[in-house]
């Protein structure tokens, strides 16, 4: 069984509620760090981060460049920057071209997560009106990481999860309210195995 080390979540239109549903239902000792990309306007103040921090047991923050990626934290890509994951478990930022009309782009973060963490990523794609994230899911799948999409019927805008399903044979299609419990199970299994080893 894979030793997962990172959760990567992407969301666009309707993402705020979907992210709130997930982040507010994760265990306090949720084992994996979370990297999140929500499409926002370039000049946004990113109050989303403060809002979600209120509802989550985890510490929700905007990612800083070179910051270490640690458990119990949710790191959001800053407005107008792409967020990259490094092999040494830190973040980098870039202002390179928009991808799928977006900066931050979900594809950019997912692809960098695949390249850095290989098969040890749990990729989750949520509601949105964009095509962003599908290629990222494809790369995660290619690296044998786990791919989960929100069941399009439960998405406030189904375009984005649908685009991913068309491109990749994803591992799981889950209704929104099932995603957090599923992640909690993975986290507890991970913690249990760690205890056995230790």
């Amino acid at each position, binding site marked *: 069984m894979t030793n997962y080390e990172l959760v990567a979540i992407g969301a666009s239109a309707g993402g705020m509620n979907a992210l709130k549903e997930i982040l507010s239902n994760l265990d306090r000792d949720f084992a994996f760090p979370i990297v999140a990309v929500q499409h926002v306007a370039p000049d946004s103040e990113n109050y989303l981060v403060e809002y979600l921090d209120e509802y989550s047991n985890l510490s929700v923050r905007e990612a*800083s*460049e*070179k910051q270490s990626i640690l458990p119990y934290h949710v790191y959001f890509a*800053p407005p107008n*920057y792409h967020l*990259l*994951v*490094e*092999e*040494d478990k830190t973040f*980098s*930022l*870039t*202002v*390179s*071209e928009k991808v799928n009309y977006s900066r931050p782009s979900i594809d*950019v973060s997912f*692809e*960098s997560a695949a*390249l*850095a963490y*290989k098969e040890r990523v749990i990729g989750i794609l949520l509601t949105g009106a964009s095509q962003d994230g599908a290629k990222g899911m*494809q*790369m995660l*799948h*290619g*690296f*044998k990481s786990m791919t989960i999409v929100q069941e399009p019927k439960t998405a406030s805008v189904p375009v984005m999860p649908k685009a991913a399903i068309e491109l990749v044979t994803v591992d799981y299609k889950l209704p929104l309210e099932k995603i957090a419990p599923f992640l909690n199970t993975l986290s507890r299994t991970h913690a249990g195995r760690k205890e056995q080893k230790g």
Partner: protein
Amino acid sequence: MINNQDLAQENISIDIKLLLEAIYLKYGHDFRNYSQAHLKRRILHRLMLSNINSISEMQYKVLHEPEFMQEILTDFSINVTEMFRDPAFYLTMRKDVLPVLRTYPYIKIWHAGCSTGEEVYSMAILLEEEGLLDKTLIYATDNNETVLKVAKKAEYSTENLKNYQKNYEKGGGKGKLSDYYEEKGSVIKFDPRFRKRIVFSEHNLVTDNVFTEVHLIICRNVLIYFNRNLQNRVIKLFHDSLMKEGVLGIGSKESVDYSRYGDAFEYINKNQKIYIKKSGNDE
């Protein structure tokens, strides 16, 4: 062309290290301390677009075709920029920095990593509006000669003009942006009086040293591509290039706090990441 399954089998990190070493040994361009994730993305992007099958094949091509090296150089540097990018930065410059610079008999500014020059002309316009252009010289440098050629021409597409006009206004612009350029078809050309106050030249932050002492350094969204070691080097370079109480403006998500020279600077404006070099640190 390479697919995801093949990619997963590649020794990407090792191959990239070898490629960067080859580039350094052959051409002296040192990308070894750049963000790995950034380079990986750019290299794989090139790999997907071209008919090269692997990073090691790319290494062979780089070593034998200098013109391919120029392409790689352009791939590695991010040249996304716009007039008055992040208008609040220019507003702060206007309100809090230029009044300080005004007190000097002449002003020298270094814009490091100037790319295609949009932000250099933005600063020149700002100086003009504050009545300081005539006593200012701006040194604008980049490590990529291709973008410098564009910058020197002072010509830009009208495509983003609306956005530029909006940025200019938000940055505290006193007139109209169109006061400063001539429009010819799909191109605008900035008035030659700006170009006269700017010296464009090649300078590499990674390998070159201090070339002059200045009152203000602007270097935005360049440090984010460097690892901590290289950031340290560059911040020291800036420190050494600034006159007493000189000013440093970096990207809004960048910081000098982690650097060994962090203590040698204090904030003028924290949100806009504008610092002043503390006096008494010239050991």
